[in-house]
């Protein structure tokens, strides 16, 4: 009788725990559903990088391109472009778009960020 009670109590806790987890994650999520570009799905990230490449192709501004790519949360903007190229290949991007991505990739490989001047 006593062991049945202990077993039942443990089982009730487990049931409550599962219900609590489901309620917290699905019914009352505390996180704001609004996200950042770093949380975008891979195909949307690839299009984000393509937009950056299109703009870079016109203005040639690598610093601005690097700033845009930094929004994707990668440590190195080149990694973001590499990932976008792989995704673009999988999705069958047009040749012209692949060339734009490649142009951005090449540009970033030769890019050296200008260090901020330090105050004496």
């Amino acid at each position, binding site marked *: 009788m006593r062991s049945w009670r202990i077993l039942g109590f443990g089982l009730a806790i487990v049931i409550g725990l*599962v219900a609590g987890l489901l*309620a917290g994650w699905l019914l009352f999520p505390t996180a704001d559903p609004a996200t950042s570009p770093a949380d975008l799905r891979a195909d949307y990230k690839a299009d984000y990088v393509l937009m950056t490449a299109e703009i870079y192709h016109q203005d040639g501004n690598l610093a601005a391109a690097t700033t845009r790519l930094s929004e994707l949360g990668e440590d190195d903007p080149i990694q973001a472009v590499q990932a976008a190229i792989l995704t673009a290949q999988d999705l069958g991007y047009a040749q012209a778009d692949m060339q734009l991505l490649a142009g951005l990739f090449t540009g970033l490989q030769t890019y050296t960020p200008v260090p901020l001047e330090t105050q004496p």
Partner: protein
Amino acid sequence: MDDDYLERDEGPRQPPWFLLTGVIVGLLIGLLISMLVIPVKYKDTAPVALTDGDKGSYRLMIAQAYRANQDLARAISRISLLQDPTAADNLAAQAQQALSSGEEQAARDLAGLAAAISTYSVVQVTTADPTPPVDGTPAVVQIPTLMPTAGPFLVVDRQPVCDGATSGLLQIELRDREGYPAPGVQINVTWDGGVDTFFTGLKPAISTGYADFQMTPGVSYNLQVGEGGETLTAISAPDCTDASGNAYAGGVKLVFGQ
């Protein structure tokens, strides 16, 4: 022994409160874990889930990419990812914000895309051939109407407007060499002690080549449209009289063409 047994068995049965207690304890622990320890995290999202600030940056990137590639269909496809039913209006509003922040190029890009989207139309073209198509449906041709805006703008019409609804309003309408509205063109207005800059296309509901400016009665304004465009001087709100004989400041309507 038998008496004890009978006494226990015949007593009122207690409900299994320990089970309810266990469920409540588990529920509290589960809520604690799911809300504080391991809260839900959103991954692999779509642009529609971006924060308002990031949506603004995303919109600007679309506008800048549109300036770079002039691919309106692609820009519309991208802007539709934000699932915004009033995309053109939001672009125009963001352009106005960018302008007030001194980001003229961004404002120009956003206004240009806003105007292009609002003029993007699906035109149903029914062929003049008296023989209907086999399936009986008219041909549908998508015509993105992009307006060339190069070249100086010269004034072609200038009229005072005596209408109480547009009192003191300077209305400007730009048309390109084809006679179509010209969006995204910068207009500079200067007066004694002030200057203002705005773009056509921020009120696409009126016209994508339309812009307006509220004048103060008694103040003389100079206006230049686009780079190298004609500069008009001494523009001021005209004196008008309503049906009751009361004087009020009227508006001015200017039409420019290339």
